[in-house]
Structure formats: C-alpha cells, structure tokens
C-alpha cells in the first residue's frame, strides 16, 4: 500500500466502527466497545506508521505528502479534494491519535463496564447505582453500567472519524465537513443524558452557538473559493495567490479590508465559535453536562483544538501581507480575542466550584493563549501549545472524571445526597486515589507551567517569549497575568480536591478507579511531561540542544520558515515566577479549607467575587439579548402575527369572496350566461309551436305543399336565371 492511499484510509476505521455498532452490535456492550477501541487503535497504528515514515524523510516540510482526487464537476473544472501530510498535520495527528485512543479506553471504565444493571436506570439518564447483596446477605449500593453504553461508543467512533478527516485533508471544504460532523457529535454527546433538562439545554446551546460562527465561516469558505477557484491548501498558500488576495480590496470594500483580510476574519470567527473564544465562549462550560470522557475528548483535546488547528493551518492566509511589523486585520483580531479570552476565562475559573467547570474555563483560557500567540505571529508557539495542551488537558479531564467517579462511589456508599462534582465536597483524596492524584498533579502542573519539568512550561514560555521579543507589550503582560491566575486556580483545584482532610463522608469513602481509567491517566501523564522536551529552544541554557527541537520543524509547513526566537532571560523569569507564584498562592489560600466553610476569597473580593462566580453575567446578558427576543419572536410575536396578520389576510380574502361571487352571479351569470341559454331554448320552442300547425299528418297535403313549393322555386329560379 502506498503511503498516500494509507493517508486516505486513516479516518476509515472509526466510521466503520460507528456503522457496525449502530447497525449490528449495539446489543452487545462488549463487542461495541471492543470494536470502537480496535478502530481507534487501527487509526493510531496507521498514524504512528506514518510518523515513522515521515521522520526518516529529509526536508519533509518542503516536500509534504499530497494526493489529489477529483470529487465532482464544478462548472468546466473538477472540484478536487486532497490529503496533505506536512509537519503540522503530523503534530496534530500525533496528539489526536494518542488522546482519542486513551479516551476510548478510559470510557470503558468510566461507564462501569462489568458493573450490574441499575435498579431503575433508564436510557437518557445517568446511572443511579444498583443494589447488590454479598455473601453475608448485606445489601449495598454499587455503581451501575450506563444504559446507552453501545450508543456512546458509536458516537465516539463517528467523532473520531470527523477529527481524522479534518486533520488529514488538504481541502478546506472537507475540513468543514469534518468540522460539522464533530459539531453534530458534540451536540449528541453533550446531550447524551437527554432526559436531564440541563443536558438537553446545554446541547442545544452548544449547537446553536457554534452554528453562528460556522455560518460566517462558510461565507469565508465560499468567498475564498470565489476568489481563488480552489480550496486545496497547497494551491492557495502560494505567494502569488496570497499576495493577490492581500492586494485586492474585499467585496463591497467592507471596513477597508483586503480580500485576504475579510476571508481571514470570517475563518477566525469560525475558530472563535469552535474553540469557544469570547464572545462565543458560553457553550463550553455548559458542555460539561456530558459524560466526562466527552468533555475530555471533544471539549479539551480534539474538537476545540480543531478550531486552533484551522487558524494555524490558515496562518499563511491570515498573515498575507504581513511583513513582520504591523499585524494584519485577522491577526489583530486574533491577538485581541485570544488575549482577552485568556485572562477573561482565567478569572472566571477562580470562582467555580465544579471540578469540571474549572477545567472548562481553563480550556477556554488556554485556547485563548494559542489564538493570541498566532495573532502576534507565533506560529510554532501556537502549534506547540496546542499539542501540549491537548495532552495535559485530556489528562486533567480524565483525572477529574476519575475523581467524580470515586466520589460518586462514596455518595452511593453513604447515601448522602451531595454534588459529587463540587470541589468543596472533596478534600484528602490523595490517599484514597493515589494514581489519580499523582497523574492529576502532573497535569495540573503542566497546565500551570511548572518550570523545566512539564510540557506546559515549554509551550507557554514560548508564547510569552514570542510576545516579548516582538514587543507586543499588552499581549505579553496580559498573558503573564493570565498565566499567574492559571497557576493559582490550578493549585486551588488540586488543594481543594486532593490535599487536606476529607470534607464529606462521601469523600472519605471514595476509592481508586478501575485500571481501564487509571492506565490512560498514567500514559497521558507521561506524555504531559515528555512532550515538552521535544520543543526545548536550542539556545536554552544547559538544557538546550540535548534533545533535537522537533517541534520547530512545524515551521516548515509555512511557505516562509519562521526564524527561531532569540533567547531572553526576562520572559523565562516571568513564566517561572508566575507559575511558581501562582501555585504557591493557590496552596497558601486553600490549604486549610474546612467542611462547610465558604471560599476564602469570597469575602475579600466581595462584589467582584459575585461577578466572577456568575461568569460576568454573560449567560444572563445573552439570555436578555438573544434568547428571550428569539423566544418572544417564536411565541408571542408569532401568535400575534398568526392571529392578526395571516388570519386577517385570510379572512379578508374570505370576505371579498362572497361579494365578488354575488357580483358575478347577478351581473354576469344570470343575465348573460343563463339569459343566452334560456333564449335559445325559448326561440326553439316558439319556432316549434308556430311551425307545428303545418304538420297535419296527411300525406296529400304534404305533397301539395311540396308541389306548390317546387313550382314557386321553379318560378323564382326561372325569373332569376333566365333574366
């Protein structure tokens, strides 16, 4: 098999698994999850084989693997789709393959495979636990298996297909197809427990919010196709085309943008929706209503990363006309949105108590870091952080799922009705769940950017260094503060969850999760540390140059390779200080929280705390601006419109009808149509009456008449003809 045809086949296994599970094996839970994991494994093996091939290729970045296929005729040419494997694809495929496989395996344990069926579990609701009796006849409650187990793995298969399709393709339209498939899966999986009203609402919210962005993005795609006649990356990202786009003014001269600027902004808007950036960030925290593997896979590691992947991929277009100074319009937009979102979401994360919501806001914040990095031209930094973030955020989410699982076990055991996701109901879990604790610690430190050891440090440092070297001071300072807050809330989370003493009985009875859950945690934890070493700057003191900087190869995906940034002590010190400082502060403030005690920061911050707690009231704001008017339009206004306008028109037409009808009846039908018919009948009758007297029935009279007529006619003809 050639390497090109294999690239086409990478997404195949998960979609096959999806169809087989949906159509045939959905009754067998074991078969379904085996199939799904095998599919993920197949794709992962193909990806790793591809990576091994590629690593042995010299100057791979300049000669990416491409393959074209005509899809459908468009006018006088064919619309071709393609696959493209360049260093950026490899980097993305790498973390996608690993995280997807890990999350698939983790889901087996998370959905309690092997546990008994619940007492009154039903599809669409979280499992509530099952009562079992042991050998001594004691009854106790244990966790029960997810009723829609097979369906979950089917959705995951479809999702993995969408992601692989999106990454391997070399065509923007196919990327958009993968993008939308993932959007659908996101909706289905957020609302997986659809009998829960909040989950249902969250699914709809996620779908509608991202749809707003997707429509604009589709406009951008259409405009790009209109402007260039192709959607294949390699045909667009050539200097002539890009310069042409940058030189042409946009349609209608909107805001004085160039065509490249307008297309770029529309594509960035797509990313803002998908990667949950302000102002479309509202859906991601609510998406935590879904099962935790969903949060890990879709809302941390893969789908939201796809948004960042898109802008990294389209960086040549977004930066078209950029000469190293003066950012282009899409870059300015990205720099602003990314930086703002990074600090905005980080501040909200401080005040959240739900273990998953904290991670959700941290995801938004970290994605903001990447977008901001790209906005200031930090192509490699953004790609690097995208990869490290995928690993440690998947790890953190899976870890939080393990924590919730453990506490849920305690809740079932004690019978207390407490929220198993509230961090204030936890505490002291490090002894109960050691593997989860240590892996979570690694993930948390990576997120906080713990110096030297963790992956997050290297990638975040690269972003800060980029901002510093290119003298984007507002971006640099804001991101540094955001990094400080990140470290702070990460330590707050770790302290509240794992350190100190248990604050509830449920936390006391928590226990370590099944190996199917902890194994992925351990593997991801290793990646969360090791992967950073692939991107250590060459000029870094002592450590630089020991390991080759593999990540830097990603820059070869660009037509013009970006230069490595020169080393500078100041951003390095900044990132070390904010990271360690944030972690220390977090530990200091939260180390002694007792059961029932409010958040120690609630009092000193006062009203600010309330605002943060309520996420700057964005949900309420959108509710007033969009949701309520929409509902009002749909309900009250529509009814008013229906009863008054539409019914009014119908009634008007109805009342004109009889008037028109009687007019026709009285002035046209009766006198003209009927009158004519009656007249003909009348005349015929009168003629009959007047002529019937000659019908005597006597043959001789008839003959006489005939004779007389003949003679008369004869005389007439004679007179006429002869004279």
């Amino acid at each position, binding site marked *: 098999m050639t390497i090109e045809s294999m690239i086409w086949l990478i997404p195949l296994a998960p979609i096959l698994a999806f169809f087989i599970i949906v159509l045939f094996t959905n009754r067998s839970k074991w078969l379904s999850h085996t199939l799904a994991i095998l599919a993920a494994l197949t794709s992962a093996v193909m990806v790793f084989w591809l990576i091994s091939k590629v690593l042995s290729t010299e100057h791979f970045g300049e000669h990416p693997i491409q393959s074209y296929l005509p899809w459908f005729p468009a006018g006088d040419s064919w619309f071709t789709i393609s696959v493209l494997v360049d260093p950026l694809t490899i980097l993305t495929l790498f973390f996608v393959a690993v995280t997807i496989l890990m999350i698939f395996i983790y889901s087996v344990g998370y959905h309690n495979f092997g546990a008994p069926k619940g007492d009154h579990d039903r599809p669409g609701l979280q499992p509530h636990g099952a009562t079992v009796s042991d050998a001594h006849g004691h009854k106790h409650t244990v966790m029960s298996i997810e009723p829609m187990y097979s369906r979950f793995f089917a959705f995951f298969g479809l999702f993995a297909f969408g992601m692989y399709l999106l990454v391997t393709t070399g065509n923007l339209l196919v990327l958009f197809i993968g993008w939308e498939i993932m959007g659908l899966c996101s909706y289905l999986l957020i609302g997986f427990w659809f009998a829960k009203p909040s989950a249902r609402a969250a699914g709809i919210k996620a779908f509608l919010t991202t749809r707003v962005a997707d429509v604009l993005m589709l406009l951008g795609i259409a405009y790009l196709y209109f402007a260039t006649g192709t959607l294949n990356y390699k045909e667009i990202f050539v200097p002539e085309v890009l310069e042409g786009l940058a030189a042409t003014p946009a349609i209608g001269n909107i805001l004085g943008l160039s065509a490249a600027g307008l297309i770029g902004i529309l594509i960035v808007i797509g990313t803002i929706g998908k990667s949950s950036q302000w102002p479309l960030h509202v859906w991601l925290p609510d998406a935590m209503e879904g099962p935790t593997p969903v949060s890990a896979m879709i809302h941390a590691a893969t789908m939201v990363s796809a948004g960042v992947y898109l802008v990294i991929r389209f960086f040549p277009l977004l930066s078209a006309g950029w000469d190293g100074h003066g950012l282009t319009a899409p870059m300015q937009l990205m720099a602003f949105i990314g930086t703002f979102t990074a600090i905005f979401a980080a501040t909200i994360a401080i005040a959240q108590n739900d273990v998953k919501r904290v991670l959700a806001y941290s995801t938004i914040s970290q994605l903001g870091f990447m977008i901001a990095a790209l906005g200031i031209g930090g192509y490699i930094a953004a790609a690097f952080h995208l990869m490290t973030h995928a690993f440690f955020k998947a790890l953190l989410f899976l870890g939080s799922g393990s924590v919730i699982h453990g506490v849920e076990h305690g809740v079932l055991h004690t019978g207390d009705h407490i929220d198993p996701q509230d961090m204030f109901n936890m505490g002291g879990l490090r002894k109960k769940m050691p593997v989860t604790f240590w892996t979570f610690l690694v993930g948390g430190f990576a997120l906080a950017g713990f110096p030297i050891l963790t992956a997050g440090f290297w990638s975040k440092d690269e972003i800060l260094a980029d901002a510093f070297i290119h003298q984007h001071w507002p971006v640099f300072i804001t991101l540094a503060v955001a990094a400080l807050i990140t470290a702070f809330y990460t330590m707050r989370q770790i302290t509240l969850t794992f350190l100190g003493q248990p604050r509830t009985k449920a936390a006391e009875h928590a226990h370590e999760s099944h190996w199917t859950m902890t194994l992925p945690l351990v593997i991801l934890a290793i990646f969360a540390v090791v992967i950073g070493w692939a991107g250590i700057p060459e000029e870094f003191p002592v450590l630089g140059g020991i390991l080759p900087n593999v990540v830097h190869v990603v820059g070869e995906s660009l037509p013009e390779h970006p230069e490595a940034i020169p080393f500078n002590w100041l951003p390095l010190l900044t990132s070390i200080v904010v990271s360690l400082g944030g972690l220390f502060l977090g530990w200091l403030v939260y180390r002694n929280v007792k059961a029932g005690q409010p958040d120690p920061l609630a009092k000193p911050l006062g009203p600010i705390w309330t605002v943060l707690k309520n996420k700057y009231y964005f949900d309420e704001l959108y509710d007033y601006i969009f949701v309520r008017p929409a509902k009002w339009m749909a309900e009250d206004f529509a009814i008013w419109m229906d009863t008054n306008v539409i019914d009014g028109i119908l009634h008007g037409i109805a009342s004109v009808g009889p008037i028109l009808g009687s007019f026709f009846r009285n002035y046209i039908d009766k006198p003209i149509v009927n009158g004519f018919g009656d007249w003909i009948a009348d005349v015929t009758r009168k003629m009959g009456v007047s002529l019937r007297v000659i019908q005597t029935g*006597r043959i001789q009279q008839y003959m006489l008449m005939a004779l007389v007529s003949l003679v008369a006619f004869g005389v007439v003809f004679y007179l006429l003809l002869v004279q």
Partner: protein
Amino acid sequence: MIPLSWYLIFAAALFCIGLYTVLVRRNAIIILMGIELMLNAVNVNLVAFWRYVNPQVIAGQVFAVMVFAVAAAEVAVGLAIFISLYRRRNTVAADEVDLMKW
C-alpha cells in the same frame, strides 16, 4: 313521323293526370295508381328523347326498363303496407291515416 313535341305533350298530360289523382283521390290504391301514371309519363319522355335525340346509345331504353323494375318493387311494398294498414285500421283512405300528426 310524329314530331317530338307531341310525345312531350302527351307525357306531360299523363303526368298531370297522375299528379291530380295522387293529390285528390282518397283511396290509397288509387293514389298508388296515380304514382304509376307519373312514372310512366317519365318513361314516355325517356324513350322519346332516346329515339329523337340520340338513337345510337340505348341508355334511354335501359333507364326506362330500370324505372319499370323500381315501380314494380314499389307497388309490391306499397300494396303490402296497405294490406297491413287495412288489417289494423280497417281503412285505406289516405286522409284517415294521420298518425304522423303533431
């Protein structure tokens, strides 16, 4: 030789007698006889014209023979109708048979 006009006058007289008979007599059989007279008046004309105008072609004689045949057939049908009429209505007077009246 007798001139053609004499034959024509004779035929016309015969025709008028027949016509008169048809119009004024009540008895249907006599009316039928009148019709026969009129047909024979025509025959006289046919034969006379043949003889005087175009004696080489025998079309006139043939025509006359055909008129005889038709007249015989007509009489046969007519007499049959009269017998049937007499059986039903006990009369053959033309003015009493006015079923076709309005």
